[in-house]
């Protein structure tokens, strides 16, 4: 329980008998270098006892950088053909994802993965669905901007054009001058600003948060309360991969003392009886080339999960009901077609995934709890909205 303890809220949750066994009330002292502008931002926004994200010292979160990043995030000039912005795949009303099974890039090319929600992306220990080493938001932004296989924003080789477009705009001249007073407009400045803005996409106002961090006992319905017990209990074991303040084990906070890299094969596919995933996306193995990394992906946050359908890395589950079917069965059975196979029999499947003798009431309660993770205020927060409107 040691690492969960360091990542979960310290005080109020200890009041819950139901979850107290996995929590400690005294987390370790912060050891990471402080980032004054980030600290100030999070102190201003987050409840006092809500764990703070870790932000590298080299990435200040000034209001000026956040403002610039927000303009860039919503600007279609960041795509080669001017048709897409970051927002195209990360829309506020959908908790900063796009509602598609597979993302579509600016040239119409389909991605092989589903757009990830950006909710609480500041807490991610690693970024994207499956990269062991990509952990900095500025560096990650290079992928959608300049990646070519597949094309997303389609800016590869056009960095001079991009800087020209921005430099010609009076709004940006002022925004860059304020955010980076001593620097010329550069790709580095663009991605730093995008990172600063993305760290403000914070979910902390859900009914669950009102209970967990504000002690509002009435915040959850009876069903959601029962669902929470199931979620954090040994029968369902959801919290093993979806624990921590951010409902993902791949979480890093300002209090984290270790970088733990966690990826899981959940038995979605088993093409060959040996656990093979479709060639179109084999998860972490695509990067590391290690056979044991077949089908391993980072557990995404479940905050706002009711808004982020369809689910899984390839959008292959249409609804939360389908997701529960998969986990309750202990792996997905695909009866026919090119991806046929029984994920429950995959030797690579995580040990936490096993058949569960679920009752209809439990399913309903779990669903109710998952809906209690929706932060309605985030969806309408003007601080996160398109500044060009």
């Amino acid at each position: 329980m040691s690492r969960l303890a360091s990542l979960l809220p310290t005080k109020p949750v200890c009041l819950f008998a139901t979850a107290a066994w996995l929590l400690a009330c005294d987390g370790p002292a912060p050891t990471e270098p402080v980032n004054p502008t980030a600290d100030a931002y999070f102190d201003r926004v987050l409840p006092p006892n809500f764990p703070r994200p870790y932000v590298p010292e080299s990435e200040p979160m000034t209001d000026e950088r956040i403002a610039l990043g927000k303009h860039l995030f919503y600007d279609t000039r960041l795509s080669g053909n001017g048709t897409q912005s970051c927002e195209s795949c990360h829309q506020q009303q959908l908790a900063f994802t796009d509602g598609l099974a597979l993302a579509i890039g600016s040239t119409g090319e389909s991605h092989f993965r589903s757009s990830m929600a950006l909710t609480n992306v500041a807490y991610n220990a690693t970024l994207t669905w499956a990269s062991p080493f990509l952990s900095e938001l500025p560096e990650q932004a290079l992928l959608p901007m300049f990646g070519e296989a597949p094309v997303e924003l389609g800016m590869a080789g056009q960095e001079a054009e991009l800087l020209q477009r921005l430099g010609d705009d009076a709004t940006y001249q002022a925004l860059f001058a304020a955010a980076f007073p001593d620097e010329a407009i550069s790709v580095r400045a663009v991605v730093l600003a995008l990172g600063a803005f993305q760290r403000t996409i914070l979910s902390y106002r859900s009914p669950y948060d009102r209970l967990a961090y504000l002690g509002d006992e009435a915040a959850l319905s009876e069903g959601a309360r029962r669902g929470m017990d199931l979620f954090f209990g040994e029968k369902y074991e959801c919290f093993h991969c979806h624990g921590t303040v951010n409902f993902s084990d791949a979480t890093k906070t300002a209090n984290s003392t270790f970088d733990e890299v966690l990826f899981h094969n959940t038995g979605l596919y088993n093409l060959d009886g040996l656990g093979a995933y479709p060639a179109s996306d084999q998860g972490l193995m695509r990067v590391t080339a290690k056979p044991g990394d077949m089908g391993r992906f980072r557990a995404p946050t479940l905050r706002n999960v009711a808004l982020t359908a369809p689910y899984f890395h390839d959008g292959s589950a249409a609804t939360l009901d389908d997701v529960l079917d998969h986990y309750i069965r202990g792996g997905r059975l695909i009866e026919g077609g090119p991806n046929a196979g029984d994920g429950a029999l995959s030797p690579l499947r995580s040990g936490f995934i096993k058949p569960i003798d679920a009752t209809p009431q439990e399913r309903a309660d779990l669903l109710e709890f998952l809906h209690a993770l929706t932060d309605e205020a985030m969806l309408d927060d003007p601080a996160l909205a398109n500044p060009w409107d």
Partner: protein
Amino acid sequence: MTQLPRTWRHAALATTSVLALSVAACGDNAHHHDHDEPTPDAPPAGPQAVSLRFAAAVGDEPATCDQVFTGFGPNADISLQFQDLRFYVHDIEFIDAQGGSEPLAMDTVSPWQNEGVALLDFEDQSGLCANGTTDLRSIVTGTRAAGTYTGLRFTLGVPFEQNHQDASLAAAPLNLTSLFWNWQGGYKFARIDTSVEPVNPGDPRPVFNFHLGSTGCDGSPAGGVTACTADNLAVIELTNFDVEADQVVIDYRELVGAIDLAVNGGGPPGCMSGTTDPECPAPFANLGLAMGDNSPAMTAFVAAPVSP
């Protein structure tokens, strides 16, 4: 670029053969390496400034963006145009007759050479090379210890330490976004992309992208990439090479051989260094890079005299 001499291929074949132990293997070719052995007691002189010349070719012709090249594929009926033609080199060494080597101390030349890594650039943004740069670069400059050298060795690619830096912070020549390869946490060592002429005009153009880079990379959020199972750094050795008279030529015909550039047998179109991509073993072998247990002979780079 000037036209390559008709004879360069002949000279090249001899110079690249690992078995060509002496210039005698060049047969009747009056080769420029037929000079005296170095005098053992010659006084060491100071460092020499060196300009190592590179060229890109398709057989006997210079490879350029604005031209159609013919005769590719198993039936020699595929025509193509380049869309990109750039690569990085490092660890350049000159080899003497005794097998010893002296490194080239690379100059810092913005934006082409920095910290021992050089970019060679044979696309000028013309034709289909739209995402390239107008600038060209065909030399690597530096200094080496005075001496008599008979051969050349260099590594195609970016050294591990520089390959896995944060690309958003990198200095030129590692700041070109079209050479970023972020999902693998590195760079495209070589980017040689071609677009195949369709059989019927107006049909979609198949592309054959050759992206060389390290794969199988693992690491951590804090430490970045710590190791790659396939670094795919090709050590290129040209046993007969005189920096005064010769240039290093990459021949696209030799690189791709007779593979069918118009058909994607699997993975992305062309070869993006995927270990299971059916279009990868041939160009990898031609760079002398093993895929599996083989130890192929490098043929894609050759030494050729610079035309007068």
